[in-house]
């Protein structure tokens, strides 16, 4: 399988554009720091997008309100990915976004006022539902017709990309903007605290001393096009999405299985769909959240698939924080950048391998690498596991 990627856009803790994100990655500059924007007590380390809602609204020229931060971040990334593309009645264009919080960034303020009987603003609830997050982005971009939102926790973004590819493969759409967006919220920050997997220090994926994640926020979108659409747009192909798969772990509501069953299935099937062999994978952008459970289970899955020949791998979450539904999309854009620029990103904050598996990630930024195929993993609550394979365009 092979679907062309012709546009990318990203907003994260390490930059408001693709260029800014690339520059931070090249300079090993993390975007994680103490809370600046979120209304939350405590010195938590978070990967915030360095821009207030007001600044985002004015940058993006959004007229109608209320609008959630999730929509604003998504719009910024979607607009960058859409670029100068033109609308055409001859092309079936769609948009699929992913979000886990939707408009919760607004709802939680409403709900506090509601509980305190402090004149709550019911109107912000119009942007609560996840579907609205995407409709707002679609409306701003002038897209109508196939507008859809997926919500499968931390694998959502990867699933949106996969669904877009399948719609193109089966000839249902000619081009589709796919991605994900999630704002940082008190809801999720307190949620991961309640699970006792929020690290008060910098997250340390794949390190023996890892003790949890740092949340981030952001959005990323990719434009997928078929031949007909490219004939119209004349867009250059950045690289291809060649493999995808989703599988259920069916082990536990939150924890991943010790044998990495769901993760192994997702990786194996995605590589199979791509028509490549495991040996063809040049780099793995791991899910690597920094929790004890995920990183061990993911490492076991990598050993299941790659044995002694595990390709270069790293988690980029120490740069961006864990952006939940946006993570799969943000890491997809980073995978495209790795192929485009022949680079591999470092796994920051690493010092010692996990005892049980001994896998050692890449710890320094690498340039001039022959990166032809990248595997990107995204695993979520409820045992929702997805893997994508990106490949250099050979046609």
């Amino acid at each position, binding site marked *: 399988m092979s679907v062309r990627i012709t546009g990318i856009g990203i907003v994260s803790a390490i930059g408001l554009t693709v260029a800014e994100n690339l520059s931070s990655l090249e300079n090993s500059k993390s975007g994680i720091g103490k809370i600046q924007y979120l209304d939350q007590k405590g010195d938590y380390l978070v990967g915030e997008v360095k821009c207030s809602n007001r600044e985002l609204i004015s940058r993006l020229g959004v007229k109608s309100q209320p609008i959630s931060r999730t929509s604003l971040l998504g719009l910024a990334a979607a607009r960058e990915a859409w670029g100068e593309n033109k609308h055409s009645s001859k092309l079936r264009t769609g948009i699929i976004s992913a979000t886990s919080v939707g408009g919760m960034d607004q709802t939680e303020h409403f709900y506090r006022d509601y509980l305190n009987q402090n004149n709550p603003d019911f109107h912000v609830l119009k942007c609560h539902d996840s579907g609205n997050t995407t409709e707002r982005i679609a409306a701003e971009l002038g897209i109508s*017709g196939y*507008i859809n939102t997926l919500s499968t926790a931390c694998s959502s973004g990867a699933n949106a990309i996969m*669904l877009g590819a399948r719609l193109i493969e089966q000839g249902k759409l000619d081009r589709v903007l796919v991605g994900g967006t999630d704002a940082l919220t008190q809801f999720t920050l307190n*949620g991961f605290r309640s699970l006792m997997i929020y690290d008060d220090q910098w997250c340390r994926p794949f390190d023996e001393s890892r003790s949890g994640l740092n949340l981030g926020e952001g959005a990323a979108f990719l434009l997928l096009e078929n031949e007909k659409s490219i004939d119209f747009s004349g867009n250059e192909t950045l690289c291809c999405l060649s493999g995808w798969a989703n*599988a*259920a772990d069916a082990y536990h*509501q939150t924890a991943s299985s010790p044998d990495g069953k769901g993760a192994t299935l997702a990786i194996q099937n995605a590589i199979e769909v791509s028509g490549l062999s495991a040996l063809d994978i040049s780099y793995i952008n791991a899910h690597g959240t920094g929790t004890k459970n995920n990183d061990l289970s993911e490492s076991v899955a990598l050993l299941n698939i790659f044995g002694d020949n595990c390709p270069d791998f790293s988690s980029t979450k120490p740069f961006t924080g864990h952006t939940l539904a946006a993570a799969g999309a943000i890491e997809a854009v980073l995978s495209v950048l790795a192929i485009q620029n022949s680079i591999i990103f470092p796994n920051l904050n690493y010092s010692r391998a996990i005892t049980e598996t001994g896998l050692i990630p890449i710890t320094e930024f690498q340039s001039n690498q022959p990166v032809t195929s990248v595997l990107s993993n995204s695993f979520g609550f*409820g*045992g929702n596991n997805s893997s994508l394979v990106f490949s250099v365009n050979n046609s």
Partner: protein
Amino acid sequence: MLSIFTKSQMYITAASTISHQPTFKNAGFSKLIEPLKIDSELISPNFKEYIDAGLLRRMSKILRMSVTAAKDCLQQAEVDQPGAIIVGTGLGCLQDTEKFLNNFLTIEGLLPPTSFIQSTHNTIAGQISLSIGNHGYNMTHTQNTLSFEHALIDAGLLLGEGNDNIIVGAADEYIEILSTIGEHLHVKPEVNLTSGASFFIVSKEQSGKSIAKIKDIETVGLVQDIQESIENFLINNTLKESEIDLVLYSDFNDLKDSGQVSDVFKRFENSSELINYTNIIGIYPSNSAFALHYAVDRIRDNNKIKSVLIINGLNKINLGLILIESIEA
């Protein structure tokens, strides 16, 4: 415009609904059912027959309803493991979402994690997979009133990719604050806000278990011309209005007085039976999933009904269309 089933077919082999009406394990309910009463209550089957006590004790309303309806479908279709599990939900697990909001805004100390874990939209599909040990494709669509239609389209794609015996369904749950919100936003629905879960098994081959066929599905987000969209949908399926035996529609609340919608109905009213399914089942974002079950039940009961069209206009900016045919057709 997205017209999905040019190649693969989609046969319904099981259907199950838990709602405010006597829909559960009650084939032929469509004959008996009356418009929703103001004081109607959500039916409550013996969930313990379907769900392990260890899982059940944590489950909110939406999870209990969904897992039970999904398992009932598996029993009806005599399928052990479905090829995939696909769920649509407009607002997700509201009960747990509100509970966790309450918790973190009011509790000073440590927070209980259960309601956070179960607040994510994909808890429904995740709990179905967990309760039957299924490792297949597991997806959750949430596009407010079109969530179910999107789940069905995804199921169609999977059938086209060779997958089979897919659980597809939709669920939404009512919580009290929805009524308060409605009042403050000056939305006064004429029908109750309700909860409901409808699940189905769809397969690519016709079999003795097949009860109806889904011919086509389309979603039009940010719809511009409802009438034109419906016309094109029928043209794509080489059908005339007069060939549709039954039209199931939802409220076109805000559009009632606009000429657009009354024109839509004029085209059908001479030859088709018209039923507003929202008056039967109440309002929740994914209630078009009930409409599909209702259509299937009518088809099973009356061999004169060959074609049913569901027109989902519950939210005026979105249009969902599902075309169902009887097996003989």
